[in-house]
Protein backbone atom coordinates (compact mmCIF):
# COMPACT_ATOMS: atom_id res chain seq x y z
CA UNK A 1 0.00 0.00 0.00
CA UNK A 2 1.23 3.49 -0.89
CA UNK A 3 1.87 5.56 2.18
CA UNK A 4 1.69 9.30 1.95
CA UNK A 5 4.52 10.89 3.83
CA UNK A 6 3.94 14.42 4.89
CA UNK A 7 7.12 16.09 5.97
CA UNK A 8 7.20 19.63 7.23
CA UNK A 9 10.25 21.77 6.86
CA UNK A 10 11.63 23.48 9.90
CA UNK A 11 11.12 27.25 10.07
CA UNK A 12 14.81 27.91 9.47
CA UNK A 13 14.82 25.78 6.32
CA UNK A 14 12.01 27.39 4.36
CA UNK A 15 12.87 27.00 0.65
CA UNK A 16 12.79 30.16 -1.44
CA UNK A 17 13.51 29.34 -5.08
CA UNK A 18 11.15 27.33 -7.24
CA UNK A 19 13.77 24.61 -7.62
CA UNK A 20 14.15 24.36 -3.84
CA UNK A 21 10.38 24.16 -3.48
CA UNK A 22 10.29 21.37 -6.07
CA UNK A 23 12.97 19.43 -4.19
CA UNK A 24 11.07 19.84 -0.93
CA UNK A 25 7.75 18.89 -2.55
CA UNK A 26 9.38 15.82 -4.06
CA UNK A 27 10.33 14.74 -0.54
CA UNK A 28 6.70 14.99 0.49
CA UNK A 29 6.54 18.52 1.82
CA UNK A 30 2.97 19.62 1.14
CA UNK A 31 3.62 23.15 2.36
CA UNK A 32 6.30 23.55 -0.28
CA UNK A 33 3.99 22.31 -3.00
CA UNK A 34 1.26 24.64 -1.80
CA UNK A 35 3.77 27.52 -2.00
CA UNK A 36 4.60 26.45 -5.55
CA UNK A 37 0.93 26.49 -6.52
CA UNK A 38 0.56 29.99 -5.08
CA UNK A 39 3.65 31.16 -6.92
CA UNK A 40 2.74 29.60 -10.27
CA UNK A 41 -0.98 30.41 -10.19
CA UNK A 42 -0.63 33.73 -12.09
CA UNK A 43 1.19 32.10 -15.01
CA UNK A 44 -1.16 29.10 -15.15
CA UNK A 45 -4.24 31.32 -14.82
CA UNK A 46 -3.06 33.64 -17.62
CA UNK A 47 -2.43 30.64 -19.88
CA UNK A 48 -5.56 28.66 -19.12
CA UNK A 49 -8.00 31.58 -18.92
CA UNK A 50 -6.42 33.09 -22.03
CA UNK A 51 -7.02 29.83 -23.86
CA UNK A 52 -10.42 28.87 -22.46
CA UNK A 53 -11.89 32.12 -21.20
CA UNK A 54 -12.99 32.68 -17.63
CA UNK A 55 -15.08 29.50 -17.47
CA UNK A 56 -15.54 26.68 -14.93
CA UNK A 57 -13.52 24.42 -17.25
CA UNK A 58 -10.60 26.83 -16.96
CA UNK A 59 -10.54 26.32 -13.18
CA UNK A 60 -10.71 22.53 -13.67
CA UNK A 61 -7.85 22.63 -16.17
CA UNK A 62 -5.89 24.84 -13.75
CA UNK A 63 -6.33 22.28 -10.96
CA UNK A 64 -5.51 19.39 -13.28
CA UNK A 65 -2.33 21.20 -14.33
CA UNK A 66 -1.05 21.23 -10.77
CA UNK A 67 -2.15 17.65 -10.08
CA UNK A 68 -0.25 16.48 -13.18
CA UNK A 69 2.72 18.57 -12.11
CA UNK A 70 2.67 16.97 -8.65
CA UNK A 71 2.55 13.47 -10.12
CA UNK A 72 5.41 14.37 -12.49
CA UNK A 73 7.64 15.86 -9.79
CA UNK A 74 9.92 12.83 -9.83
CA UNK A 75 10.40 13.02 -13.58
CA UNK A 76 11.11 16.77 -13.57
CA UNK A 77 14.84 16.97 -14.32
CA UNK A 78 15.19 20.75 -14.36
CA UNK A 79 16.05 21.08 -18.07
CA UNK A 80 13.59 23.96 -18.25
CA UNK A 81 12.44 26.33 -15.52
CA UNK A 82 9.59 25.19 -13.27
CA UNK A 83 7.24 27.82 -14.68
CA UNK A 84 8.03 26.75 -18.27
CA UNK A 85 7.42 23.13 -17.32
CA UNK A 86 4.07 23.94 -15.70
CA UNK A 87 3.06 26.25 -18.57
CA UNK A 88 3.69 23.40 -20.99
CA UNK A 89 1.32 21.18 -19.01
CA UNK A 90 -1.25 24.01 -18.87
CA UNK A 91 -1.14 24.77 -22.59
CA UNK A 92 -1.39 21.08 -23.53
CA UNK A 93 -4.34 20.51 -21.21
CA UNK A 94 -6.01 23.67 -22.55
CA UNK A 95 -5.56 22.52 -26.14
CA UNK A 96 -7.03 19.13 -25.17
CA UNK A 97 -9.99 20.88 -23.56
CA UNK A 98 -10.55 22.94 -26.73
CA UNK A 99 -10.48 19.72 -28.78
CA UNK A 100 -13.04 18.21 -26.41
CA UNK A 101 -15.18 21.34 -26.73
CA UNK A 102 -14.94 21.18 -30.50
CA UNK A 103 -16.05 17.52 -30.49
CA UNK A 104 -18.88 18.38 -28.10
CA UNK A 105 -20.18 21.21 -30.25
CA UNK A 106 -19.30 19.87 -33.69
CA UNK A 107 -22.82 18.54 -34.06
CA UNK A 108 -24.27 21.99 -33.58
CA UNK A 109 -21.74 24.10 -35.43
CA UNK A 110 -20.15 23.88 -38.82
CA UNK A 111 -17.34 26.35 -38.12
CA UNK A 112 -14.02 24.95 -39.29
CA UNK A 113 -11.37 24.96 -36.59
CA UNK A 114 -8.69 26.65 -38.65
CA UNK A 115 -11.02 29.24 -40.02
CA UNK A 116 -10.51 32.40 -38.04
CA UNK A 117 -12.64 34.47 -40.37
CA UNK A 118 -15.47 35.61 -38.14
CA UNK A 119 -18.21 38.12 -38.40
CA UNK A 120 -18.33 40.73 -35.68
CA UNK A 121 -21.75 41.06 -34.20
CA UNK A 122 -23.15 44.21 -32.69
CA UNK A 123 -22.66 42.93 -29.16
CA UNK A 124 -18.93 42.26 -29.38
CA UNK A 125 -18.31 45.38 -31.43
CA UNK A 126 -20.32 47.68 -29.21
CA UNK A 127 -18.65 50.55 -27.37
CA UNK A 128 -20.14 49.52 -24.00
CA UNK A 129 -17.54 46.74 -23.65
CA UNK A 130 -14.46 47.32 -21.59
CA UNK A 131 -11.16 47.00 -23.46
CA UNK A 132 -10.20 43.74 -21.73
CA UNK A 133 -13.53 42.08 -22.43
CA UNK A 134 -13.43 43.17 -26.06
CA UNK A 135 -9.97 41.78 -26.55
CA UNK A 136 -10.80 38.55 -24.68
CA UNK A 137 -13.85 38.15 -26.86
CA UNK A 138 -11.77 38.66 -30.02
CA UNK A 139 -9.16 36.24 -28.67
CA UNK A 140 -11.77 33.57 -28.08
CA UNK A 141 -12.68 33.74 -31.76
CA UNK A 142 -9.26 32.64 -32.90
CA UNK A 143 -8.64 28.96 -33.57
CA UNK A 144 -6.65 27.09 -30.86
CA UNK A 145 -3.33 27.13 -32.74
CA UNK A 146 -3.45 30.90 -33.23
CA UNK A 147 -4.79 31.53 -29.74
CA UNK A 148 -1.96 29.51 -28.20
CA UNK A 149 0.76 31.67 -29.76
CA UNK A 150 -1.00 34.88 -28.72
CA UNK A 151 -1.48 33.62 -25.16
CA UNK A 152 2.10 32.42 -24.74
CA UNK A 153 3.73 35.36 -26.47
CA UNK A 154 1.58 38.26 -25.32
CA UNK A 155 -0.16 37.14 -22.15
CA UNK A 156 2.60 34.98 -20.66
CA UNK A 157 5.33 37.15 -22.13
CA UNK A 158 7.43 34.33 -23.59
CA UNK A 159 9.87 35.05 -26.40
CA UNK A 160 9.12 33.76 -29.89
CA UNK A 161 11.80 31.09 -29.39
CA UNK A 162 10.25 29.96 -26.10
CA UNK A 163 6.80 29.96 -27.68
CA UNK A 164 8.10 27.81 -30.55
CA UNK A 165 9.72 25.34 -28.14
CA UNK A 166 6.63 25.22 -25.97
CA UNK A 167 4.34 24.41 -28.90
CA UNK A 168 6.95 22.32 -30.70
CA UNK A 169 6.64 24.33 -33.91
CA UNK A 170 9.21 26.30 -35.95
CA UNK A 171 9.85 29.96 -35.11
CA UNK A 172 8.69 30.93 -38.60
CA UNK A 173 5.32 29.34 -37.88
CA UNK A 174 5.08 31.25 -34.59
CA UNK A 175 5.79 34.52 -36.40
CA UNK A 176 3.30 33.88 -39.17
CA UNK A 177 0.63 32.77 -36.71
CA UNK A 178 1.25 35.85 -34.58
CA UNK A 179 0.94 38.11 -37.61
CA UNK A 180 -2.22 36.43 -38.87
CA UNK A 181 -3.79 36.29 -35.41
CA UNK A 182 -3.13 39.97 -34.73
CA UNK A 183 -4.44 40.92 -38.14
CA UNK A 184 -7.56 38.90 -37.51
CA UNK A 185 -8.03 40.43 -34.08
CA UNK A 186 -7.63 43.86 -35.59
CA UNK A 187 -10.30 43.00 -38.18
CA UNK A 188 -12.63 41.71 -35.48
CA UNK A 189 -12.11 44.87 -33.47
CA UNK A 190 -12.55 47.21 -36.45
CA UNK A 191 -15.93 48.55 -35.30
CA UNK A 192 -14.51 49.17 -31.85
CA UNK A 193 -11.60 51.18 -33.22
CA UNK A 194 -14.01 52.99 -35.52
CA UNK A 195 -16.10 54.08 -32.57
CA UNK A 196 -13.08 55.23 -30.65
CA UNK A 197 -11.41 57.25 -33.36
Amino acid sequence: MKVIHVKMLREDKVPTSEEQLVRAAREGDRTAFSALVKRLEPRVAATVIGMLGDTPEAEDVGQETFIRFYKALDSYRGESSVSTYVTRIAINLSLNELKRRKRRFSLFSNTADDDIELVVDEKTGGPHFEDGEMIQSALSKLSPGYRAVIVLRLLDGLTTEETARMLNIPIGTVLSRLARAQKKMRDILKPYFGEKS
Partner: protein
Amino acid sequence: MNRELLDLLYRSFDADLTEEERQRLDEALATSEALQTEKERITSIREVLSKNATDSFKPLFTERVMRALETAEETDVSTDVFFESLYRFFRPVALAAAAAAILLVSMNLWDSDDITLAAALGMQEDSIEVMFETPLEAILEEPL
Protein backbone atom coordinates in the same frame (compact mmCIF):
# COMPACT_ATOMS: atom_id res chain seq x y z
CA MET B 1 -1.71 49.59 -48.17
CA ASN B 2 1.39 47.80 -49.43
CA ARG B 3 1.09 44.13 -48.44
CA GLU B 4 4.82 43.67 -48.06
CA LEU B 5 5.13 46.66 -45.75
CA LEU B 6 2.19 45.46 -43.74
CA ASP B 7 3.86 42.04 -43.27
CA LEU B 8 7.05 43.81 -42.27
CA LEU B 9 5.14 45.87 -39.71
CA TYR B 10 3.56 42.77 -38.15
CA ARG B 11 6.89 40.98 -38.11
CA SER B 12 8.59 43.95 -36.46
CA PHE B 13 6.69 43.33 -33.22
CA ASP B 14 8.09 39.85 -32.68
CA ALA B 15 11.18 39.38 -34.82
CA ASP B 16 14.44 41.19 -35.32
CA LEU B 17 14.38 42.97 -38.66
CA THR B 18 17.49 43.43 -40.72
CA GLU B 19 18.96 46.91 -40.93
CA GLU B 20 17.58 47.29 -44.43
CA GLU B 21 14.10 46.10 -43.45
CA ARG B 22 14.05 48.40 -40.42
CA GLN B 23 15.01 51.36 -42.57
CA ARG B 24 12.36 50.55 -45.16
CA LEU B 25 9.69 50.25 -42.48
CA ASP B 26 10.70 53.47 -40.77
CA GLU B 27 10.57 55.35 -44.07
CA ALA B 28 7.15 53.90 -44.86
CA LEU B 29 5.87 54.77 -41.40
CA ALA B 30 7.06 58.32 -41.83
CA THR B 31 5.08 58.76 -45.00
CA SER B 32 2.03 56.48 -44.69
CA GLU B 33 -0.69 57.53 -42.30
CA ALA B 34 -2.54 54.23 -42.85
CA LEU B 35 0.52 52.25 -41.80
CA GLN B 36 0.94 54.45 -38.72
CA THR B 37 -2.69 53.85 -37.75
CA GLU B 38 -2.19 50.12 -38.24
CA LYS B 39 0.86 50.19 -35.99
CA GLU B 40 -1.06 52.11 -33.29
CA ARG B 41 -3.94 49.63 -33.40
CA ILE B 42 -1.74 46.58 -33.15
CA THR B 43 0.26 48.21 -30.36
CA SER B 44 -2.91 48.97 -28.45
CA ILE B 45 -4.24 45.41 -28.93
CA ARG B 46 -0.96 44.01 -27.64
CA GLU B 47 -0.92 46.38 -24.68
CA VAL B 48 -4.50 45.62 -23.71
CA LEU B 49 -3.84 41.89 -24.07
CA SER B 50 -0.83 41.87 -21.79
CA LYS B 51 -2.37 44.35 -19.36
CA ASN B 52 -5.60 42.39 -19.03
CA ALA B 53 -4.14 38.92 -18.64
CA THR B 54 -6.13 37.28 -15.83
CA ASP B 55 -3.51 36.27 -13.31
CA SER B 56 -5.60 34.36 -10.79
CA PHE B 57 -8.41 31.89 -10.53
CA LYS B 58 -11.25 32.31 -8.06
CA PRO B 59 -10.17 32.89 -4.43
CA LEU B 60 -8.76 29.93 -2.46
CA PHE B 61 -7.53 28.22 -5.61
CA THR B 62 -4.46 26.79 -3.84
CA GLU B 63 -6.63 25.23 -1.13
CA ARG B 64 -8.85 23.64 -3.79
CA VAL B 65 -5.81 22.26 -5.59
CA MET B 66 -4.46 20.74 -2.38
CA ARG B 67 -7.84 19.16 -1.64
CA ALA B 68 -8.09 17.80 -5.20
CA LEU B 69 -4.59 16.40 -4.79
CA GLU B 70 -5.55 14.57 -1.60
CA THR B 71 -8.63 13.14 -3.32
CA ALA B 72 -6.52 12.05 -6.30
CA GLU B 73 -4.04 10.34 -3.99
CA GLU B 74 -6.78 8.61 -2.04
CA THR B 75 -8.16 7.30 -5.34
CA ASP B 76 -4.68 6.11 -6.31
CA VAL B 77 -4.29 4.40 -2.93
CA SER B 78 -7.68 2.67 -3.17
CA THR B 79 -6.82 1.53 -6.71
CA ASP B 80 -3.54 0.13 -5.40
CA VAL B 81 -5.39 -1.65 -2.58
CA PHE B 82 -7.85 -3.15 -5.08
CA PHE B 83 -5.13 -4.53 -7.34
CA GLU B 84 -3.12 -5.76 -4.37
CA SER B 85 -6.16 -7.66 -3.03
CA LEU B 86 -6.79 -9.07 -6.48
CA TYR B 87 -3.18 -10.22 -6.68
CA ARG B 88 -3.29 -11.76 -3.20
CA PHE B 89 -6.51 -13.61 -3.98
CA PHE B 90 -5.44 -15.00 -7.32
CA ARG B 91 -1.86 -15.85 -6.41
CA PRO B 92 -2.63 -19.24 -4.73
CA VAL B 93 -5.10 -20.09 -7.49
CA ALA B 94 -2.52 -19.21 -10.13
CA LEU B 95 0.14 -21.36 -8.39
CA ALA B 96 -2.21 -24.34 -8.16
CA ALA B 97 -3.22 -23.91 -11.81
CA ALA B 98 0.42 -23.75 -12.90
CA ALA B 99 1.23 -26.93 -10.92
CA ALA B 100 -1.75 -28.72 -12.47
CA ALA B 101 -0.71 -27.63 -15.97
CA ILE B 102 2.84 -28.91 -15.43
CA LEU B 103 1.51 -32.23 -14.13
CA LEU B 104 -0.81 -32.59 -17.13
CA VAL B 105 1.96 -31.84 -19.62
CA SER B 106 4.28 -34.34 -17.88
CA MET B 107 1.59 -37.06 -18.02
CA ASN B 108 0.91 -36.39 -21.69
CA LEU B 109 4.60 -36.58 -22.53
CA TRP B 110 4.98 -39.75 -20.45
CA ASP B 111 2.20 -41.46 -22.43
CA SER B 112 3.46 -40.26 -25.78
CA ASP B 113 6.45 -41.38 -27.83
CA ASP B 114 7.08 -37.90 -29.23
CA ILE B 115 8.26 -34.79 -27.54
CA THR B 116 6.19 -32.26 -29.44
CA LEU B 117 3.84 -29.46 -28.48
CA ALA B 118 0.86 -31.47 -29.69
CA ALA B 119 1.98 -34.41 -27.56
CA ALA B 120 2.51 -32.18 -24.53
CA LEU B 121 -0.99 -30.76 -24.93
CA GLY B 122 -2.47 -34.24 -25.46
CA MET B 123 -3.61 -33.36 -28.95
CA GLN B 124 -1.55 -35.89 -30.81
CA GLU B 125 -3.49 -37.33 -33.73
CA ASP B 126 -3.39 -41.05 -34.42
CA SER B 127 -2.58 -42.02 -37.97
CA ILE B 128 -5.16 -43.91 -40.00
CA GLU B 129 -2.97 -47.02 -39.89
CA VAL B 130 -2.83 -47.02 -36.11
CA MET B 131 -6.60 -46.57 -35.95
CA PHE B 132 -7.25 -49.58 -38.21
CA GLU B 133 -4.52 -51.78 -36.79
CA THR B 134 -5.73 -51.45 -33.23
CA PRO B 135 -7.93 -54.46 -32.44
CA LEU B 136 -11.45 -53.64 -31.45
CA GLU B 137 -11.02 -55.62 -28.22
CA ALA B 138 -8.07 -53.46 -27.22
CA ILE B 139 -10.15 -50.34 -27.70
CA LEU B 140 -13.10 -51.79 -25.80
CA GLU B 141 -10.85 -53.00 -22.99
CA GLU B 142 -9.33 -49.55 -22.53
CA PRO B 143 -10.63 -48.03 -19.35
CA LEU B 144 -12.80 -44.99 -19.89
